[in-house]
């Protein structure tokens, strides 16, 4: 059914700016200022989607974030948005939307078969069946999954950008309705730094959809003026289309601002689509308004059943007729205001059906004066129609409210405007940790006790009248400003507020048959198709905690998060249990208030900016040399330098060969470097390393192992004594931050009186390792002021001088087992030193080598790598490094742990070398070792391979392994059952190459 449902005049739409859009493939027209929902209604489109479980026809039910039904798939391709609420989508030219959860079309949906079987599909039906045979659940599940879900996920990368902004303020005002505007006005006039945020494109909140008057101005106009005044203040930040979605610890709040959605997919040229504001507020004013509740009555889900205030808003704000003949169904006075507005807009009100027997307030009187029939003490017992409501049947309600009687009176209508009262939007208050209280008079939860520095004002505080909202809002804004040291400004606005009489608490409106007995369904939660019978069933079956009931029935778990259903669901549960509502409790609200895109949560930290890639001063050279990189921590390190046609294996073998036979060069700048100064530096070294440091001479270096207090090796490195009380410590690349933090922690937390300063100099020095038999030859050319002879400059010594004309620290250390020098120069000169070495080294066939070759070279020497051999479970003894553990030292970090009973077990996993019987087989790292192959698992494992390579120098494969009791097992054969074969290997020493260390000391 379509047609023109636009009112001839009125509304806040711009009739001079028509917009074309497409819904389910059909072209329609709306106006600027429309929401997708209002535009659909104006075109007479009332069937919008299908429900989650029963696939029942559904229309537009609300006008804001609380919408449970009208979820659409917005746009297509890369710009698509699943589950967009039609009530929150601002119309733009060319908008494309489709219904969800229906096949083949929303008009004729195959899934509707579920509605026919509804009788055997009560809440939790799936817990009671599909159990046999057990392996069949997956088959049932396949169909259940396809029937569930709503929209479709995008399949291509998002073309839009997102970002974030930290912001601090004195007062954050959440919500820009009457209370929020008043609060922001008060706070901004005081001079405070204020943020005002509202989820809509326009400030005013409830004022936009009603015909209130403030200070003799129409409400919406008053709102526009106030918003303009507030925005002019330079200390105020005004955010539209910005939802305060989360209230976290210590007055930290999240706001998501949608900057371009209202412009369409390509409308926001250059702008970010959404911005996440991260607010730290000294004071918060919550002015989040309230949400109307429906009544729970028979078949209350048919398209055409709509919240009364939403219907009113479609007429007043959007100039749209939500129907051509309406019945209003209510338990409170507020809906009479809606009825009057609808009538004034030219929509005939067939009747107002009021659950209360006695209806006397000023608003009902006004309605009666207009000749609207009021059926007090009546109820809608049935709705008729399928894809659109066509009529209702009204019957008398008994005083107890549990039965209808008399002859049903059929009233033709295509709109049922329903109101079950109002729920304050206490989500943010509850997220902040505030405690709620149930108010028996107003039939809703209101804030009771704050946990954080926040004030609720207006409807979210249970004060629904306009004058009260303005008063409370202004007072809250002023009080917040005063609390942070500003002076409260005077105030003045006036508004009328009709008195209201009490609403009637009737949580399930009886139908013609008892609830759950006929085909009629009393929906509590439209989004998840949860009925009153479902809630009662949960209570009957013992799911008595409200959390049990929610989980059993899925009440409130839909995309609307139960905004219109939570209170009624709770009340029905309480009724079933025979307890008052406060005893059954409420659920705690968690962020987000409304769904937030992952894009906004991630911000700009995607793509190129997703990670920090730390680069060395020589990085550009490696790039030019076409190096392959590997990440080590955040560093990018050259892994190998393939020449044309080389694969990694070939490149690594060539690089290793260069080091073993002539000269290799490596960028070692990423090593951690720490300067230690002070009289207690040696004391510190004695505690953090396992070996003794008292007798290290100035200009000499020593290798050290660092243990955690649990006795496990966590880092290693070489430390050099530079002066009397001055040491220079190096760490692994990955462990640099951890080691520096470790030293700082002990000095600051435990050894406060020790006189040592630790300063990280990792980034000050570029370090180049020269390794190979020709290393000294090259050094001779580049360095004239250091005596490089083995006697004058032995292994594990350090000298200062100039290398290639640059001021340098030169260390004789080696991780490759070859003669080696490590030259450190200030980082700015690192590239210059590298190039000088490359040029001078050309005659020796100098080859840059990467981390992969380094790993092979050190494994040939049996040197451990932290993270491979030392995997956090290995002690120095396990690694065969007892020689470095100072047994005479009274204490060092981790020492006591080494004496624990499990640490001295003989069958601990110990580091060994492993040679495969077939020298051509390179074992996979991580392979498990067994003593005996059994016909089938389980098999007792005795160890695993930690490192494994092809060794060019030895012409065969080598491996390091941790093997149970391995130190005493040299010479024994073990088995390695791989995926496709079993490999035999012999345990031996982990040092494969130059065990005497002659080359090192050359």
């Amino acid at each position, binding site marked *: 059914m379509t047609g023109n449902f636009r009112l001839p005049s009125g509304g806040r739409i711009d009739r001079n700016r028509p917009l074309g859009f497409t819904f389910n493939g059909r072209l329609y027209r709306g106006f600027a200022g429309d929401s997708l929902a209002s535009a659909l209604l104006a075109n007479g489109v009332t069937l919008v989607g299908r429900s989650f479980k029963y696939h029942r026809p559904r229309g537009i039910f609300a006008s804001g974030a609380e919408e449970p039904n009208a979820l659409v798939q917005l746009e297509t391709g890369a710009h698509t*948005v*699943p*589950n967009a609420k039609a009530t929150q989508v601002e119309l733009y030219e060319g908008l494309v939307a489709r219904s969800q959860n229906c096949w083949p079309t929303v008009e004729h949906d195959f899934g509707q078969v579920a509605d026919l079987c509804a009788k*055997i599909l*009560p809440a939790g039906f*799936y*817990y*009671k*069946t599909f*159990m046999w045979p*057990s392996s069949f*659940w997956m088959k049932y*599940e396949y169909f259940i999954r*396809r029937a569930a*879900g*709503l*929209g*479709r*996920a*995008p*399949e291509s*990368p*998002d073309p839009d950008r*997102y970002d974030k902004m930290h912001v601090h303020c004195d007062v954050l005002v959440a919500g820009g309705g009457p209370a929020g505007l008043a609060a922001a006005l008060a706070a901004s006039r005081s001079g405070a730094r204020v943020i005002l945020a509202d989820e809509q494109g326009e400030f005013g909140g409830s004022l936009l959809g009603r015909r209130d008057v403030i200070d003799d101005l129409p409400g919406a106009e008053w709102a526009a003026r106030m918003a303009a005044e507030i925005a002019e203040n330079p200390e105020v930040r005004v955010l539209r289309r910005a939802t305060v979605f989360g209230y*976290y610890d210590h007055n930290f709040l*999240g706001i998501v601002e949608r900057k371009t959605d209202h412009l369409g997919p390509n409308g926001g040229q250059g702008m970010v689509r959404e911005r996440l504001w991260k607010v730290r507020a000294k004071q918060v004013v919550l002015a989040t308004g309230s949400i109307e509740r429906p009544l729970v009555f028979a078949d209350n889900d048919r398209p055409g059943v709509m919240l009364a205030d939403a219907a009113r808003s479609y007429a007043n704000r959007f100039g749209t007729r939500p129907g051509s003949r309406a019945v209003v169904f209510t338990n409170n006075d507020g809906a009479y205001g809606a009825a009057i507005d609808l009538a004034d807009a030219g929509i005939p009100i067939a009747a107002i059906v009021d659950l209360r027997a006695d209806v006397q307030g000023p608003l009902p009187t006004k309605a009666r004066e207009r000749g609207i029939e009021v059926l007090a003490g009546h109820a809608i017992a049935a709705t008729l129609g399928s894809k659109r409501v066509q009529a209702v049947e009204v019957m008398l309600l008994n005083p107890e409210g549990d039965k209808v009687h008399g002859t049903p009176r059929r009233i033709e209508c295509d709109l049922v405007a329903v109101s079950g009262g109002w729920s304050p939007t206490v989500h943010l208050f509850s997220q902040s940790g505030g405690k709620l209280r149930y108010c028996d008079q107003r039939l809703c939860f209101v804030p009771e006790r704050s946990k954080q520095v926040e004030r609720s004002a207006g409807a979210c505080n249970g004060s629904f009248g306009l004058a009260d909202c303005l008063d409370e809002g202004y007072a809250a804004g002023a009080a917040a400003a005063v609390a942070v040291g500003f002076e409260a400004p005077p105030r003045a606005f006036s508004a009328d507020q009709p008195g209201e009489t009490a609403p009637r608490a009737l949580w399930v409106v009886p139908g013609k048959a008892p609830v*759950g*007995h006929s085909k009629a369904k009393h929906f509590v939660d439209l989004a998840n198709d949860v009925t009153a019978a479902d809630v009662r*069933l949960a209570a*009957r*079956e*013992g799911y008595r*905690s409200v959390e*049990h009931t929610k*989980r059993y029935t899925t009440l409130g*778990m839909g*995309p609307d998060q139960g905004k219109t259903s939570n209170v009624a669901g709770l009340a029905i549960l309480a009724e079933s249990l025979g307890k008052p509502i406060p005893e059954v409790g409420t659920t705690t609200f*968690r962020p*987000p208030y409304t*769904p937030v*895109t*992952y*894009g906004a949560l*991630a911000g700009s930290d*995607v*793509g190129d900016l*997703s990670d920090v890639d730390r680069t060395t001063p020589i990085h550009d050279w490696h790039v030019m040399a076409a190096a392959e990189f*590997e990440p080590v921590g955040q560093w990018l390190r050259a892994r190998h330098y393939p020449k044309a046609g080389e694969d990694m294996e070939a490149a690594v073998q060539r690089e290793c060969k260069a080091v073993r036979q002539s000269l290799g060069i490596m960028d070692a700048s990423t090593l951690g470097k720490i300067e230690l100064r002070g009289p207690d530096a040696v004391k510190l070294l004695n505690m953090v390393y396992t070996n003794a440091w008292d007798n290290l001479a100035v200009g000499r270096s020593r290798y050290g192992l660092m243990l955690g207090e*649990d006795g496990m090796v966590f880092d290693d490195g070489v430390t050099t004594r530079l002066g009397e009380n001055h040491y220079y410590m190096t760490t692994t690349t990955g462990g640099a931050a951890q080691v520096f933090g470790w030293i700082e922690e002990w000095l600051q937390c435990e050894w406060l009186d020790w006189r040592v300063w630790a300063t990280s100099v990792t980034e000050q020095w570029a370090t180049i390792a020269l390794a190979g038999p020709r290393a000294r030859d090259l050094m001779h050319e580049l360095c004239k002021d250091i005596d490089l002879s083995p006697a004058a400059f032995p292994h594990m010594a350090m000298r200062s001088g100039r290398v290639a004309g640059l001021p340098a620290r030169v260390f004789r250390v080696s991780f490759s087992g070859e003669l080696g020098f490590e030259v450190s120069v200030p980082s700015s000169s690192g590239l210059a030193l590298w190039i000088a070495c490359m040029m001078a080294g050309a005659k020796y066939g100098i080859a840059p080598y990467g981390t992969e070759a380094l790993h092979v070279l050190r494994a040939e020497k049996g040197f451990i790598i932290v993270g491979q051999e030392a995997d956090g479970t290995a002690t120095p003894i396990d690694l065969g490094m007892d020689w470095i553990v100072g047994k005479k030292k009274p204490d060092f970090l981790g020492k006591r742990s080494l004496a*624990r*009973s*499990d*640490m001295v077990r003989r069958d601990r996993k110990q580091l060994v070398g492993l040679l495969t019987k077939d020298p051509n087989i390179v074992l996979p*790292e*991580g392979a*498990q070792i067994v003593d005996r192959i059994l016909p*089938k698992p*389980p098999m007792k*494992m005795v160890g*695993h391979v930690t490192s494994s390579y092809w060794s060019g120098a030895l012409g065969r494969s080598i491996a390091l392994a941790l093997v149970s009791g391995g130190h005493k097992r040299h010479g024994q054969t073990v088995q390695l059952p791989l995926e496709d074969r079993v490999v035999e290997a012999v345990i031996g020493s982990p040092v494969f190459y130059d065990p005497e260390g002659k080359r090192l000391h050359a």
Partner: protein
Amino acid sequence: MRRYSIWSLARNARGHHEGWTEAWRSPEPKPEYDVVIIGGGGHGLATAYYLAAEHGIRNVAVVERGWLGGGNVARNTAIIRSNYLHDDSAFLYDKSLQLWRDLSGELNFNTMFSPRGLINLAHDKSGLVELARRVAALRLNGIRVSMIAPEEIARRIPALDCSTRAANPVLGGSWQEKAGIARHDAVAWGYARAADSRGVDIVQNCEVVGIRREGGRIAGVDTARGFIRARTVAIVAAGHSGVVAAMAGIRLPIASHTMQAYVSEPLKPFAHTVVMSPALVSLNQSDKGEIVIGMGTEEYNSYSQQGSLTHIEYVTQKMLELYPSFSRIRMLRKWGGIVDVSADASPVIGKTPVEGLYLNVGWGTGGFKAIPGSGWTFAHTLARGEPHPLVAPFGLERFHSGRMIGEHGASGSLERYK
């Protein structure tokens, strides 16, 4: 217990579903039980069930501070797998996985165990080696897990960015076919109903406020509803295990942290396989169509179920690195649980220095999948007074001897122990 089936559904439909009875009773606590289990979560209820079903010990109370199944069994990502590194863990979790298979039938309650397969991703060389080591060990322990190549991963998970330019390149992964997910609440309810029908008293809203001893042995527990005497008391209180143990004068190698998870709005099925990654803890799609993201823990000790936004931002960024097309999808709901993280990321199960007082705690972020196995072995432990062989290595003594069962890598938990 009236059996559930399609026939009982149909029969009850005729009575408008008004004939269903309580799934479990709400009894007043008796003055004395053979066994009192502190904590009505998954592990506590499963323990009670197996005590009654396997060991004939029916005079059992499960005392629960709030509502049954309201702790971490209600606040997890429902992932079930057994691909752990150490033999000890692998055997225990695999026992659990075996019990999962027929659990719905055994409990006559559909736990919706859906073994849809699970992939662990490796994004760097060391991650790949770690996976290879785990897979090799699992294979030799008879647990079917295999390595899979990036091309195969890309085929199975089209939304995953497997390009070489990705921030977290996919270098490979492991595949466990029999892993999957289940409906988390159903597990607690199923055990509760089955235990209740065998005579176990499940006492909700009954907080334990003290533990009484006589000499060196347990005497019973003081609760908000009075003293309950028992010769055997078991602490199965997850996030609150430290609080309860302190009542007995015991300090544990455990810190409680908030762990968050969050879900998207419901979407039509598109992500079948469960994916775990060192960059992001876990991702799967529930039967309702929600994408469930597990997030790991907050850094500081906490007994609050409210987590921070920073953490969500961080995890979401990691998720978008892996799944770039997800950025227009929206987070619908998040939750937090209080997890008890032990020093080696493995549970602490067994005796305490107080005779008759037992522990089954420290499951941290990995407890859900273990519920059947934990309950089964722990019931044996309580019934015999000696640890079941599968849990013997998990005793408190290991922290004295140093025989740790480090599972930081495989548990998917960050190292949070300080």
